[in-house]
């Protein structure tokens, strides 16, 4: 066990799985970098350095830098997964899914069902999402609800380094297509991560705080926000549960309902656009199944229905914050 960053945890998961299984390959733009240049090879290791260092272990045969061509990247990775490789394809920013969604939506995600259960597509798509870097409307979106909407693809949102490693290893080993979504703001966060390989099963949400007065439901980057707010409220004498969903598809419905019923008061914190997002989905689930145990209307903390603005004060206003979450909690406590 040692302290590692989220970035290091992801890198270590890739390293260990690639050592273990020669069918695992990494495909993407500048995942090593320096291709065809006279300068440093492995010059980038991904735009934020997450895959840096893999090149020296596995060479360009398994760390494959591609042209800028997301449709071909996703299609190639899907086809390779269908025929015997176990690719980890990188989509640099999830926003670029706009370029290549067909390969996910109509191809990979549907192979197994359309082909009557014959296809096995062990594809992992790693991608970066979320706001906070002042990266503006085309580089800051979350978009995970677009994937949870599609049957046939699993959606994973690790909230911390330990989960990032275990869930990425599970993603790579999983025989279904998985999109593994990394929040940009989490890369430099750190925590205890075992040195050995381990996996965390999908569909098992994690209780990061347990309490009696209120339940926060969170995913990815919003987990830390909720943990902090729960800690603040504890000092004020209120104890809260925080449920980290870990995977949005499959969704741990039992834990969600259990967590909601225990306190009867629910705040869901979701950084994605507010219409048809994870918060609305979960709130419908709770209303359908646990309506009688609710003691207050469900609160959702989300951005407004707007693109992500560039200007720093506007982006700060846009994003869910501890202050907003605390206020939402206090309204129903």
């Amino acid at each position, binding site marked *: 066990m040692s302290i590692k960053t989220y970035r290091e945890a992801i890198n270590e998961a890739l390293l260990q799985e690639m050592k273990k299984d020669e069918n695992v390959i990494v495909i993407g733009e500048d995942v090593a970098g320096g291709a065809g240049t006279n300068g440093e090879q492995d010059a980038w290791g991904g735009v934020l350095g997450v895959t840096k260092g893999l090149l020296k272990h596995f060479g360009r045969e398994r760390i494959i830098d591609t042209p800028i061509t997301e449709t071909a990247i996703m299609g190639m990775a899907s086809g390779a997964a269908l025929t015997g490789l176990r690719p980890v394809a990188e989509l640099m920013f999830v926003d670029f899914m706009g370029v290549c969604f067909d390969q996910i939506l109509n191809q990979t995600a549907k192979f197994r069902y359309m082909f009557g259960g014959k296809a096995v597509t062990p594809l992992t798509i790693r991608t970066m999402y979320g706001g906070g870097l002042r990266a503006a409307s085309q580089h800051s979106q979350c978009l995970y609800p677009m994937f949870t909407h599609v049957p046939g693809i699993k959606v994973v949102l690790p909230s911390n380094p330990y989960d990032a490693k275990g869930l990425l290893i599970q993603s790579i080993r999983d025989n279904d297509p998985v999109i593994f979504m990394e929040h940009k703001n989490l890369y430099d966060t750190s925590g205890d991560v075992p040195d050995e390989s381990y996996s965390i099963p999908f569909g098992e949400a994690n209780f990061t705080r347990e309490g009696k007065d209120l339940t926060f439901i969170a995913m990815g980057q919003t987990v830390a926000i909720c943990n902090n707010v729960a800690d603040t409220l504890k000092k004020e004498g209120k104890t809260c549960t925080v449920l980290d969903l870990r995977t949005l598809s499959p969704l741990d419905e039992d834990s969600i309902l259990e967590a909601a019923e225990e306190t009867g008061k629910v705040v869901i914190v979701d950084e994605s656009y507010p219409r048809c997002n994870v918060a609305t989905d979960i709130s419908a689930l709770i209303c359908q199944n646990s309506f009688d145990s609710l003691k207050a209307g469900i609160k959702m903390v989300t951005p407004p229905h707007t693109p992500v603005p560039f200007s720093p004060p506007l982006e700060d206003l*846009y994003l869910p914050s501890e202050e907003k979450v605390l206020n939402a909690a206090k309204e129903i406590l």
Partner: protein
Amino acid sequence: MQLSREELLKAYQGMCLIREFDDAVHYEFAADAMPGFVHLYVGEEASAMGICMNLNEKDTIASTHRGHGHCIAKGCDVTDMMKELYGKKDGICGGKGGSMHIADLSKGMLGANGIVGGGPPIVLGAALTYKTKKMNNVSVGFFGDGASNQGSISESMNMASVLKLPAIFVCEDNGYAESTAREYAVGGKILDRGKAFGLDSHEVDGDNFFEVYEAAKHVIDNARNGKGPALLHIKTSKVYGHFEGDAISYRTKEENERIKNDEDPLKIFKKKVIDAGLLELTQLENIENESKSKIKKAIEESKDAAFPNPNDLLTDVYIKY
């Protein structure tokens, strides 16, 4: 050479303003004074100016993530642009877009773009408007060597060819896409891709303003006269890295020096016009100084300017909702 003294001065003014703007952004960014991602155009100035000096206000362009030069060459106000980079309310897009989304429709600037390969399909649409309404205009789509590998670029060239649209595709080939060399990422030749779709295709030395200007004049005049689309493959180089903060370890020291010293379009222009006795050194130096003070003022004003109001977050998602 049919350029007048006024036109030559205008070309140098534009190139200097682009240079000063992006050099200043380089220093501001390094001093942590500027938010977000910025991609600088230093070293490629002759391309933007050589193309845009053949366009009028009603003609349109679509730009890339490396868009400051295109914006300035198409007439966007540098103070409004600078305010945008600082996320200020009076920025050219109200602070909502930032460096990668600068647009000024009144100037025919249809937007920088955060999506590689996002611009050229939009240019098709502008060109279709001109064709449908029998307007005498053209639309120019800029993209990089890296972007040339996107399907959207091939699809756009083909569509322009099929519909014989007044669309010009300008590939600014600076040899790299992020840290990846063109030699690695481009299969075959960029020029041949244009030819394959039936476009009038030319390779151009992008460090030489006059060569860009001539080639652009040829294809733009033709497009205006209903002779259809074209591809210009402009060979150039960028002085700074992919974005600010890039260590540029994929280029050698010698290459960096060569780009700075031997491939500087401003130096090359200056030498040509002075050697040919077309302009005097003092005229050029005056322009350099004017650009410097203009940009200095733009930065000062931008830093002092107000941020958007909280209400601004919710406006302009729709016209009416």
